[in-house]
């Protein structure tokens, strides 16, 4: 009997006479009957799984109108498929009862088998511990390797950085050398220039005035006379100030109220505390000029009158 005949029978497509003959055959032939039943199960399972297509699907669905019992089979096939899926090893969970069953079966054997089973369990446990330890060691080694790799990366970055810095320093050094060379060239040039007499530079004339501190002790403001030639451009004034210890820090100097020098450091000259200040000659007007020395707190330390006379 061909598969085609079986399908025709199952799909209700056989003429009545053929159908009767077919039924007589499968009722007398067990293997044919199971073949038909198997084919029907196969078609129903495929239909329930959505795997039936084309002409086969059409024929199957047409048969459903005539064979109400097949509808029940489809419902059964669907739940059977679910059950089978649940029973697959990957989806199956081991219940406590099953575990208990395993151990009770294990210990229901004879002493020799029990001993062998126990040995196997111990061996398995030892192997598991060994594997666990090795696994942890492997994990630790992997961590070390990762740390080493990180260190290597850091060092490479640092070497790269140092190389760049070294390059910068070399460049700086080169620039410095170049600057030194330029300066040396300039110095050499200046020396050459100094050896030659200045062409048209006017001579600088400086007048020097010494204002002694002893002058200020009689209470009156002393007057110093100074004749200035019109050629004189600057006046260098050395001022002696009272050495009573008040002027250890810097002092400032005002000329007729205008500050002409500040932050001047005191120094001892021939036993006297002095400061030096140079003022342009133009600042000293003909006649009376008052010069005052003040400490860092702006307190007056000494005061002098300079009388300027201009000469041709």
């Amino acid at each position, binding site marked *: 009997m061909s598969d085609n005949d079986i399908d025709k029978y199952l799909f209700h497509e056989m003429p009545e006479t053929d159908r009767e003959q077919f039924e*007589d055959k499968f*009722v007398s032939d067990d293997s044919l009957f*199971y073949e038909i039943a198997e084919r029907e199960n196969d078609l129903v399972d495929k239909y329930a799984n959505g795997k039936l297509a084309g002409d086969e699907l059409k024929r199957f669905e047409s048969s459903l109108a005539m*064979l109400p019992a097949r509808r029940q089979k489809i419902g059964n096939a669907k739940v059977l498929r679910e*059950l*089978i899926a649940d029973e697959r090893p990957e989806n199956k969970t081991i219940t406590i009862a099953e575990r208990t069953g395993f151990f009770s079966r294990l210990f229901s054997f004879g002493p020799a088998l029990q001993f062998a089973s126990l040995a196997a369990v111990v061996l398995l446990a030892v192997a598991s511990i060994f594997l666990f330890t090795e696994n942890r060691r492997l994990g630790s080694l992997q961590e070390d390797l990762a740390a080493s790799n990180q260190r290597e990366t850091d060092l490479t970055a640092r070497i790269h950085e140092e190389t760049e810095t070294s390059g910068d320093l070399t460049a700086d050094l080169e620039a410095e050398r170049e600057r030194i060379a330029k300066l040396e060239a300039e110095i050499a040039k200046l020396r050459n220039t100094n050896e030659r007499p200045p062409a048209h530079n006017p001579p600088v004339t400086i007048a020097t005035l010494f204002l002694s501190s002893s002058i200020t002790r009689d209470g009156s403001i002393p007057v110093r006379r100074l004749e200035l030639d019109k050629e004189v451009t600057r006046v260098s004034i050395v001022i002696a100030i009272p050495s009573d210890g008040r002027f250890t820090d810097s002092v400032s100097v005002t000329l007729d109220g205008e500050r002409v020098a500040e932050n001047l450091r005191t120094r001892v000259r021939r036993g006297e505390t002095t400061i030096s200040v140079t003022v342009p000659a133009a600042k000293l007007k003909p006649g009376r000029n008052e010069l005052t020395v003040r400490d860092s707190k702006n307190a007056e330390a000494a005061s002098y009158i300079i009388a300027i006379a201009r000469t041709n």
Partner: protein
Amino acid sequence: MSLTATSFQLLLDRLDADPSVAAEKYEILRIKIAHLHRWRGCAESQADELADITLDRVAAKLTDGDLVENVNAFASAVARFVALEHSRKNKLDAVGDDLPETPVEPNLDFLDDPDERMKCLRRCVATTLTDEDKRLVVGYYDTDADEKAKIARKRLADSLGLTINALKVRACRLRMRLEECINDCIGRVTNPRFANTKQQEVT
């Protein structure tokens, strides 16, 4: 027509001289006749009953002394007659002339909760199948592995010490038993009136 002990014994004797083999052959014959009724369009709920009626008549004919050369072929012919009778009765019982000749199972889809069917299946697996039967059904009908089904089935047959053909027959019979149990269970769930009966009457 009711089955008497004598007529039933006569039928078993005709099926096989060995009483246990005869009982098994009777059961197989009953299954085939029930399927014949299903494949002729009988509702699931009536197929078993019609199979019983068929075999009762076969036994009665044998008791009457009618000459029956091939009991199986004779049973097949009687089954067709019973099916025809049943469909005519359904037609006469029906109101109106345009109703289909074949009985149509009432649409119980709205009552057929898949969860209930699954519960029934699990209950039936637990009550009607042994662990090995369950393994066989699950292994044999795991159709998701379609292309590997033949190899898987061969491996299953080897593990159970069966030939492929024997495995097929066994799987088929187990599925029939399981489906019969599910259908009974669903019948009880969807119609509590029949909770204490084996088959649900649907007319």
